[in-house]
């Protein structure tokens, strides 16, 4: 009888922010205010966190995340460190591939078998907030002293859904251009290309130095991330901010997708690059340039290849790149229990402070201040620091993550495979996406 997970903690009489101001002012003791604070039982746990360490009975928190790549070991190390510093909190770490993660999380949360805390992508926060899987964390953000001024606004704003903050930012990640240093020096290229012309020039030089196809164009992952980056570079926007329409079928979109297909037509890329082949080929030295996520840095280091990393070249009118961000969340399930809620917040708060050490995972710290620390300035990914000011995030629209794979990603696939012209591929997908988004607005808005 401990309350259904559907109860929105935000509807309670005393706003958490108000309550927090009281507690933060030192009038109430944070640790023991718990059970009686707001309405007792179901939702009080969310309401009175002040940043003070959890000091209740020992418990184990279930922590879910999708750090399966080069970022996995770095997260394991952080969890271990947290557990060794906290006697009364143990962490049961469950790592699931991101693709499965967003399927399982709502199902598990619905069944009451979900995690207490976890990490998810910024663009999924709104969806899961709308589904009542996760709860607002305004009090935690305040207790941690998270301020908008310490973040670039694209990371800050989408964490807020219907006026409440649902995620505590951990990092920012984007895609970058990787290049094979050996191939570059053999072809006589001294600097990584910075625009369309120098990229083409490099491809030609690489071809004459013996690399038949220097720049493989994927048609599946991460092709849509490349497309989105290029779309923004050409001055386009993929979606209307209010989630009512897909707008990537304009001139900018056509130019972006057209340029991607052009790399195949000009012979810089082979036809029909299969899933992951461009990346595998890069590690094998079969191509020279590939665009991929910065989370691959650890994996590339382990492969032993002599690679360089650089900012994406400016193909359109100005520098822009797709980005996403990992945010910590707490589930409605944990919020039902004061102890779990406070322990969860202690965990998230602690993790949030490790933003700089998370650079070991190949990521960019979310906080501006953490980006000045040596852990980041000495990292491989520091080479693309210029790109940070030009990052673009998808708008916080519930259900967008379900729409994109069946529309935009298909169009990019068709365009690069040459099955359809960029115009046809994009306009068909965009009109379908607009219709699906309309249905979502209805579904989540009601």
């Amino acid at each position: 009888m401990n309350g259904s997970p559907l109860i929105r903690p935000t509807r309670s009489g005393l706003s958490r922010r108000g309550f927090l101001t009281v507690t933060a002012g030192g009038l109430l003791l944070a640790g023991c205010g718990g059970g009686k604070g707001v309405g007792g039982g179901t939702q009080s746990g969310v309401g009175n966190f002040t940043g003070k360490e959890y000091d209740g009975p020992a418990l184990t928190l279930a922590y879910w995340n999708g750090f399966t790549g080069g970022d996995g070991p770095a997260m394991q190390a952080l969890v271990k460190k947290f557990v060794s510093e906290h006697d009364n909190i143990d962490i049961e770490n469950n790592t699931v591939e991101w693709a499965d993660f967003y399927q399982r999380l709502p199902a598990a949360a619905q069944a009451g078998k979900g995690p207490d805390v976890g990490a998810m992508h910024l663009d999924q926060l709104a969806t899961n907030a709308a589904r009542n899987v996760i709860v607002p964390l305004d009090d935690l953000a305040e207790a941690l002293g998270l301020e908008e001024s310490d973040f670039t606004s694209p990371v800050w704003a989408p964490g807020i859904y219907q006026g409440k903050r649902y995620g505590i930012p951990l990092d920012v990640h984007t895609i970058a251009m990787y290049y094979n240093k050996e191939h570059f020096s053999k072809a006589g290229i001294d600097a990584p290309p910075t625009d369309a012309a120098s990229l083409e020039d490099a491809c030609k030089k690489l071809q004459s130095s013996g690399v038949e196809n220097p720049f493989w164009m994927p048609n599946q992952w991460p092709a849509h991330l490349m497309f989105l980056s290029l779309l923004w570079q050409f001055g386009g926007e993929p979606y209307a901010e209010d989630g009512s329409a897909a707008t990537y079928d304009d001139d900018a979109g056509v130019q972006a997708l057209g340029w991607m297909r052009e790399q195949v037509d000009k012979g810089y890329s082979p036809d029909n690059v299969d899933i992951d082949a461009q990346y595998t080929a890069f590690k094998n030295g079969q191509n020279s340039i590939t665009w991929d996520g910065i989370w691959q840095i650890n994996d590339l280091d382990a492969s032993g290849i002599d690679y360089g990393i650089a900012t994406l070249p400016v193909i359109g009118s100005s520098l822009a790149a797709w980005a996403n961000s990992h945010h910590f969340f707490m589930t409605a399930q944990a919020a039902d229990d004061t102890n779990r809620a406070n322990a969860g917040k202690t965990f998230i708060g602690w993790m949030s402070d490790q933003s700089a050490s998370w650079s070991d995972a190949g990521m960019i710290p979310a906080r501006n201040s953490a980006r000045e620390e040596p852990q980041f300035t000495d990292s491989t990914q520091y080479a693309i620091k210029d790109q940070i000011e030009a990052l673009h995030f998808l708008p916080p629209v519930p259900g967008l993550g379900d729409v994109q794979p069946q529309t935009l990603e298909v169009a990019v696939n068709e365009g690069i495979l040459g099955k359809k012209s960029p115009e046809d591929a994009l306009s068909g997908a965009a009109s379908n996406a607009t219709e699906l988004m309309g249905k979502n607005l209805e579904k989540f808005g009601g």
Partner: protein
Amino acid sequence: MTRRGSSLTAWLFLAPYLLLFGAFVLLPILLGLWISLHNWDFTLPGKPFVGLDNYKALFDSGSVSFDPFWKSMQATGIFTLFTVPLLIVVPLAVALVMNEKFRGRNIFRAVYFAPYVLGVAVVGVMWRFLLDRNIGAVNSYLGAIGLPDDTAWLSSVPAAWVALVGVTVWWTLGFNAVIYLAGLQDIPLELYEAARVDGASRWSAFWHITLPSLRPVTMFVTLITIIASANMFGQSFIMTNGAPAQDTRTAIFYIAETGLQNFQMGEAAAASWILTVALMLLSAIVFALFRLRGTMEDA
């Protein structure tokens, strides 16, 4: 009293299975029907009743779900059309050889059955690597012997269908072959002796004794192969991920994506029902054809 008692006994004996059948087959089927009448997202509190709207959307050529769904049904159809004949004929040939007496027969049997013990994930991932257009072993060897080495096995049609059908036949033919083998071993040897005495050739013995005797087995193999092929999901999910575009996305793939990934359970349930009805019709036709053929032979 005895009648009553015996029928009670029968029900008692059936009870354990009926319980499982009811809980894990019948109930979900009926729940699916119920879900298909709603706009059902299990993560949301509101699941409005929409009547037949989900079905209407799947049959309305102007709706956003029409093309993806029927394209996936078509993909399932293409796959079934090509795998079923191959999985009826090839395993029969293999079973005939397995049934002969020769040295190394057990090894031969094991070699053909072995792929079947692998899971779809193993099979899919392995062939995805082998069949890669640019860095796969298959194209590399084809090139080495002077054949075209640039076939996009996983991202162009019809090559992707050749790959998916080929891999599926390689993977599952052992199972059908074993069923045929059991059927072959059930045919009384006297029939063949009698035929030999009458001067029948091997071919006519096969045509007039083996095939007719195998009719029930063949019908069984045909039906389960049709159902298995129509339920294809793992191979295209892992090997092609539906590419190119969504050309190799099968009906089950579509249903799984719609229901479990996009949380549109209502529409997914409606699609499942349409697929189920289509399969039931197809099975009935196959059944009728075999019956018809049987009565013609008996006459």
